């Protein structure tokens, strides 16, 4: 995993869950929450869990305001771009609008090689159901954020109704996107309730729902 991973994707694609899963599993020390699009289902609520795993959370500057839906961005959000000791995951807001937030950091981003921008895709989200839709949303994202996408994540799921066949359905579509844009599928996340021995494209990871446990 690169030093900095930025997770993008449509809202409801599962970015925040994946951000938390990766942060815990991959010895990440900083999670930057800059989701101003849908601040309700964000990882901030999980601050304690993350802190227990040695992950510091950079979020709103309003102290002690859990449940706040004020989308302020912390000045600390730029630190991982500057401080090379930090291994960070950025949780962007949904759609291309989330990437707009990255623009304010443009002057701080020097080492592009250290940054992955991964797009999380769930083909059961109606706005990212087809190859064409996904490609268009990636182009918009790159345009708005002025940054190149470097990989894809297959997170196709219907929560606890997910089956192995569904994940393969998602893989078929996302693989076409990957081929057309010459991008790798970096991870496939498998809902923890799905029992399967199949190896899907990219690194396979079991998805433990931390965010949903708090919210749904």
């Amino acid at each position, binding site marked *: 995993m690169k030093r900095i991973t930025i997770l993008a994707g449509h809202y409801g694609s599962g970015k925040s869950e994946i951000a938390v899963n990766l942060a815990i599993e991959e010895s990440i020390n900083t999670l930057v929450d800059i989701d*101003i*699009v849908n601040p309700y289902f964000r990882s901030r609520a999980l601050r304690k869990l993350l802190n227990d795993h040695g992950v510091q959370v950079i979020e*709103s*500057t*309003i*102290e002690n305001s859990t449940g706040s839906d*004020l*989308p*302020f*961005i*912390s*000045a600390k*959000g*730029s630190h991982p771009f500057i401080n090379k000791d930090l291994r960070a995951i950025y949780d962007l*807001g949904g759609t291309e*609008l989330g990437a*707009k*937030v*990255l*623009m*304010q*950091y*443009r*002057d701080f981003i020097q080492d592009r090689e250290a940054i992955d921008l991964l797009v999380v895709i769930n083909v059961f989200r109606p706005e990212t159901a087809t190859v064409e839709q996904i490609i268009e949303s990636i182009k918009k994202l790159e345009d*708005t954020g002025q940054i190149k996408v470097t990989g894809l994540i297959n997170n196709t799921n219907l929560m606890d109704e997910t089956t192995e066949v569904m994940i393969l359905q998602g893989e078929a579509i996302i693989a076409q996107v990957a081929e057309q844009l010459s991008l790798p599928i970096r991870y496939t996340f498998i809902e923890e309730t799905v029992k399967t021995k199949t190896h899907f494209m990219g690194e396979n990871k079991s998805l433990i729902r931390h965010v949903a446990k708090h919210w749904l």
Partner: protein
Amino acid sequence: MKTKRVYEPTKGLTERALSYCPGCTHGIIHKLVAEVLEEQGLLGETIGVASVGCSVMNYEFFNCDMQQAPHGRAPAVATGIKRVKPDKTVFTYQGDGDLASIGMAEVVHSAHRSENITVIFVNNAIYGMTGGQMAPTTLIGQKTSTSPEGRNQLTTGLPIRVSEMLATIPGATYLERVSVHDPKHVRLAKKAIQKAFDVQTKKQGFSMIEFISTCPVNWGMTPTDSLAWAVDSMIPYYPLGVYKDATKPGDDDA
């Protein structure tokens, strides 16, 4: 070695850290308003009215009595306060969504009644708090989360120039548009605030200072780029200057 104190923070602000995003000019404007209140000796007898928007929590920041108003209603709340406390200083602090959209009626009628209050109006051409939607002040072609293809005047009209509009109202006493994009303009902005509170102290009626402000996060720009955009794109459409001055110069004892 002896040290000499050359600067200290204004007493007009509390110790609370401001909640604004990096590069946002709310911080500068807060400081200017607070400094003027302190310098004019008004702090201990001022009631501020917070609005809804990014500055919704400014009752935590201003070091004076504060009341939090429903969305757009700050000038009405201020009217209510001022009428029963005519000798106190009353100001509202509102953004462009709050003042120029949902609260347009209240600001127009407060000016119309020449309500003796001061309105601090912060115009950054976008809804910041709710995530960058189009505001009535959003420029033509400006992309926002609800004008993804850029604001189109055919479907959404032209941006509203509030200072110019209020200048047509006889009751408005002092209206000035300022900017805080560089030190020189910050100094000029402070003078405007001084004038506005001065108008109120002399019971001369309604005063409003409009600030050209920025929103790096929702504009999708670095703080420096956003200041440049304010200068290059906003100020040409929203020219700086005094739009109304119905006070009589020299007649200080009035």
